[in-house]
Structure formats: C-alpha cells, structure tokens
C-alpha cells in the first residue's frame, strides 16, 4: 500500500461541544483513489467530511494530511494546503458570475492562473459559454460542475465531495460521478460521500460504511458491492428507526 493521503484516527466531533455526532471514527484515503463513505441517513457522513474540512470542531482524535497533523487547522488554510471541499448544497456563490466564482477560487494561483483557467474552461465547456452569467442561473448539473471546477482551481491533492449527485437527474449524476473518476487519473484523491450506493461502489476503490456516527465495516469497493452486510446495515438502521 502506498502512503495515505489522509488519515483520520478516532475522530469525535459534532456541531455542539457536548453533543458529538461522530464517535471515534477512523478512515484512510490513498493517492489517486476514490474513497467512498456510505451509510444510512444520520450516519454522520457529512459531519465527518465537514470535520475534515475544518468546519466543525474536533473534540478528540487526530486527522493527518500527507503525514502532517491538520486536526485544528482553519478551513481557509486547509484550502491552501491542497484540500478542496465541494459541499452538497450552496456550493457556489450565486450572486457572483461564473467567471468571478472561478477567479475567486484561482486567487492563490498567482501567475499560473490564466493557464489554469483556460484548462478548466476546456474541461467544462458548458461553463465556458456562460462566463458572464450569474452562477445562480445555472442548472443543477452545471452548478455541480462549477463547484468541482472551483475545487480543481486550487490544484488540490485531495477533494472532499459531499453527495455531488444529490438532486441531479440520473444522466447528470452519472456525468458528475464519471468526471470524478477521470480526476483521479491525474493523481488527485477523492473522498466521496454518496447516497447513490450501487453506482458509487462501482466507481470507487475503497469504501467505509458508517452508521450512527461509528465505523461499521470497510473494504475494497468491489468486494462490498455484493456483500450482504452492507444491505443489513442500511436495513438494520431503518428497522431501529435511527435517522
């Protein structure tokens, strides 16, 4: 196994100090791989990704990125270190134009910015035509692409994606997920949260399953695809009424 890009060990975190949602969750992500996090509603998937992104206080445990401790590093500094985060909703600035959104994300790129912008526009032709439009006017799929383009603008080593296919048509969802796969070919690692379990498992390399804020099982994605335990975790959670 190559060295991990991201490693979380025993992370306990939540929105309010005394009410943790995650309980000692651990996870590893490897270079140029898609690491998938799945689990029933309320499992703490988004909470985990926000905690990694520095948006929630971590009360116990440690998160390392490329070997360095990033547990208590501010969100904007994580961005500078090479961690990009694409939230599930509200992931673009609606009041800015598409070009302004991209320019904002490219702010730290310095002299390389024009070349990087050109590459992004080439990669996302749908955005290239609408540069002067307000981002709020984009369709759902185009918004996700803009959000991903903004994440890529920082030339990240790791992208955290929170349900990028949520609310999209099946076709647009497929496109977004396939795009994620192509990104890993250029060496980027992706930590992906998805509800679209079967589709995502076919795409991912490794998968962690959470329920009720705790690790359940993990393993290679293709092995989990036909694993009965996966279904049971979903069904079990549903039977217990935990949401």
């Amino acid at each position, binding site marked *: 196994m190559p060295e991990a890009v991201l490693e979380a060990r025993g992370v306990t975190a939540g929105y309010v100090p005394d009410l943790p949602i995650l309980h000692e969750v651990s996870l590893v992500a490897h270079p140029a791989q898609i690491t998938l996090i799945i689990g029933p509603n309320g499992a703490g998937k988004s909470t985990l990704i926000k905690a990694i992104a*520095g948006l929630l206080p971590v009360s116990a445990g440690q998160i390392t990125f490329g070997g360095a401790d990033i547990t208590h590093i501010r969100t904007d500094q994580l961005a500078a270190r090479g961690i990009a985060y694409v939230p599930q909703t509200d992931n673009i600035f609606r009041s*800015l134009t598409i070009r302004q959104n991209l320019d904002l994300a490219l702010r730290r790129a310095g002299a390389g910015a024009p070349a990087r912008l050109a590459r992004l526009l080439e990669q996302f032709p749908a955005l290239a035509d609408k540069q002067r439009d307000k981002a709020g006017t984009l369709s759902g799929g185009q918004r996700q692409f803009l959000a991903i383009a903004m994440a890529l603008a920082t030339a990240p080593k790791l992208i955290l994606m929170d349900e990028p296919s949520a609310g999209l048509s099946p076709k647009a969802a497929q496109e977004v997920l396939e795009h994620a796969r192509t990104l890993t070919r250029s060496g980027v690692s992706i930590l992906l949260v998805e509800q679209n379990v079967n589709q995502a498992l076919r795409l991912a390399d490794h998968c962690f399953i959470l329920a009720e804020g705790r690790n359940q099982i993990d393993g290679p994605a293709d092995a989990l695809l036909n694993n009965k335990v996966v279904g049971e975790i979903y069904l079990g959670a549903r039977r217990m009424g935990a949401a």
Partner: protein
Amino acid sequence: MIQNLIDGVLTGSYISLGAIGLTLVMHILRFANFSHAELLSLGAYAALVCDALVSALVPVFAVKLAPLSLTGALIVAIFVSMVFTGLSALVIDRLVFKRVREKGQELSMVFASFGMALIIRNVIGLVFGLSPELYSKDIAFAMILSRDPLILVKPDQIFVLVAALVLMFLLHLILSRTTFGYSLRAVAENPSLAQVNGVNLQRTIMAVWLIGGGLAAVAGIFYGLSHQLIPVMGRDLVLPIFAATIVGGIGSVYGAVLGGFIVGIAGNLALVVLPSGYTPSVPFLLIIVVLILRPHGLFGEARA
C-alpha cells in the same frame, strides 16, 4: 421644488457613503450596528483636529482652494481621518464586538452597539464641547444656478457630490473587478463556503471595518462641510442611514447608494408639504413604506 431636489441629492451623497459601510457590516456580521453613525462623528472630528494641525504646521495648505471653502489641509485631513476612523472601527470591533460575538450572543451585538454609540457620542461631547464647530469660519457664497425659480448651490456641495460619486465608483470597481472584491461578496453570501475557497474570514471582517469606517469618515466630513459639526450628529444621522440600507435592501452596496439618495431627496422634498420640524420622521415613514411594499428593499434578497 427643484432646489429641494438638488439639496436632496447633496444630502443623499453623504447618507449613501454612511449607508454603504453600515450595509456591509450588517450583511457580513449580521447585526444592526447602531454605533455606525458615531463613526461619522468620529471621522468628522478627527478631520477637524488634523485640519488644524496641518494648517498650523504647513501654512501653505491653509489657503482656500477657491471657489471652495475647502483648504489643502482639509483634503489631507480627509485621508488621515479615513485611516484613523477605519482603524478605530477595527479597534472597537476587537475590544467589544468581537468578544460579544465570540460569546455566541449574536442578538446582544445590537445592545452592545447602542452602548458603544452612547460612549463614543458623549466622549466626543466631553472632548470637543457641546457647541457646534465648523471647518471654515468664512461664509461660503452660493452660486446662483437660476434666478427664476431661484436655485442656489454652494461650490462645496458640488465638491461633496463629485467626491462621493468618485468614491462609490472606486468601490464599485473593487467589488466587480478584483478578487478581493469577490471575496467580500463571497463572505457576505456564504461565509463558510468562502472559507472553503481559501478566504480568511477574520481578515475579511477587518477589511469590512476598514472600508466601512473610511467611508463613514468621509460621510461625516461631508456632513460637516454641508452643515456643522456637533457631538450629537450621529444621533441625527443614524435613522437616515439605516433607512437607506432598508430601502436599498440590507447587504446590497448598490442598494445602499440608491437608498441614500432616496432618503436624502425624500427628506428635502418633504419640506414642500410638511413643516421642517417633521424632517426627522421622514426616514421612518420611508422605512414603513418599504416594509409594506417591498420588505427586502430594492436590491435585497430574502435571508433568514
């Protein structure tokens, strides 16, 4: 009537400048800052001191730039006061608002701002005395634009209007052409997403106070040029600048500019139908009208 309209535009120019900073603070820090108008007073008095100092030290600057009553010293004072007031806003945030904010008492910020307004206003009163002050003791003669109907404009007023428009245009360029401007707008729309995109929240908040304080200083000085300086000028200006932000829509810089002119013009036009004693109520009436017709203002967005 036309005279009232012209006076209204001139009044509007300094109300707009005050409202821009207020609307930014209200949008980004999410509280109605009742001490913002005191930054106008602070700026006006800081310029008074600086003007006197520069005039005494460099007599060349004490000469009036005819036909304005303005001196070179006052021009220098405007810039010094902008910096001073911006820094003061920053210090006040550090000492008071930041601490209240960090205690999680978001609603208490409004109280704290009222308390700060009382302190600043009355400290100015203690330091400078309660009687009015003027930048220039000379009587500025008005230019007659028209004899029938009689329309008078002072050269200083033209200067105020032009300078205000230039400042607004500069701000527009910053907001619409620079990544720094985008980052301000980004924080206003979605602070956590802005951080995700590498924007330093603390530094942006500092920038907002610097810009808001700087523009407030200019607004205060222009008010002083058009009227006179009194320690309680903040008390008289707070409602008009709040009205401007509500008319324009809280958070909208362009709304604040337009709202400022609307408030200024409405206040002066009201003189045609109402006795002058009622002028202080006009901004309130405007607020009520906007809340009935268009609660989120001309350019505002609904936001919880």
